[in-house]
């Protein structure tokens, strides 16, 4: 089992552009959460997807949107990129039952906005 896989690993975009990040959850997991981790900070919750719908959302603007597909994989889209969006974006998956088990994380996508 490859665990949680994210692509791409690194990305450089220009301010104002749009970006799409992808995540495949661990086998057997149907819930995907996305986090933003700025340098020197802890992961900040963006949103969570379950049954192809956004179930929870953190304090992020509408420029951040997502999608979950029938195979449970997910995308994070960020529009109108700002310099401050430069960060490591982490995807985490979990089963919908037994939430106490915590999340399994991917290695992340390093986004640099120039």
């Amino acid at each position, binding site marked *: 089992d490859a665990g949680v896989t994210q692509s791409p690993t690194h990305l450089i975009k220009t301010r104002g552009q749009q970006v799409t990040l992808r995540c495949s959850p661990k086998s057997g997991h149907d*819930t995907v*959460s996305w*986090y933003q981790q700025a340098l*020197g*900070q*802890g*992961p*900040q*919750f963006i949103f*969570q997807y379950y049954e192809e719908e956004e*179930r*929870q959302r*953190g304090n992020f603007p509408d420029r951040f949107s997502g999608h979950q597909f029938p195979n449970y994989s997910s995308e994070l889209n960020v529009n109108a990129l700002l310099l401050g969006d430069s960060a490591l974006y*982490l995807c*985490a998956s*979990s089963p919908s039952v037994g*939430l*106490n*088990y*915590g*999340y*399994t*994380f*991917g*290695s*992340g996508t390093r986004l640099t906005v120039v």
Partner: protein
Amino acid sequence: AQRVTQPEKLLSVFKGAPVELKCNYSYSGSPELFWYVQYSRQRLQLLLRHISRESIKGFTADLNKGETSFHLKKPFAQEEDSAMYYCALSWGSASKIIFGSGTRLSIRP
């Protein structure tokens, strides 16, 4: 609002010394608490969760609801314990997990 506070950005101890990484949380109900660890060049991984009352790699953490704390402890530090440690909180049916800002643990030989 729910919050996790890790007051120490960096903790440096000698090999063989006891370790305690502090974590305090803000939530009035029954929380679910976790410790995650990130070793150099590795992904974030779950170290332990309070409901399991387990000991992983010699680490333990006890939930103190009175002090709203979930400190991580190990009696004898080892060099391989050097890593970034994050305390995390989940609650109710929310299921989302929020993280503290992390503590970098450095074990000196």
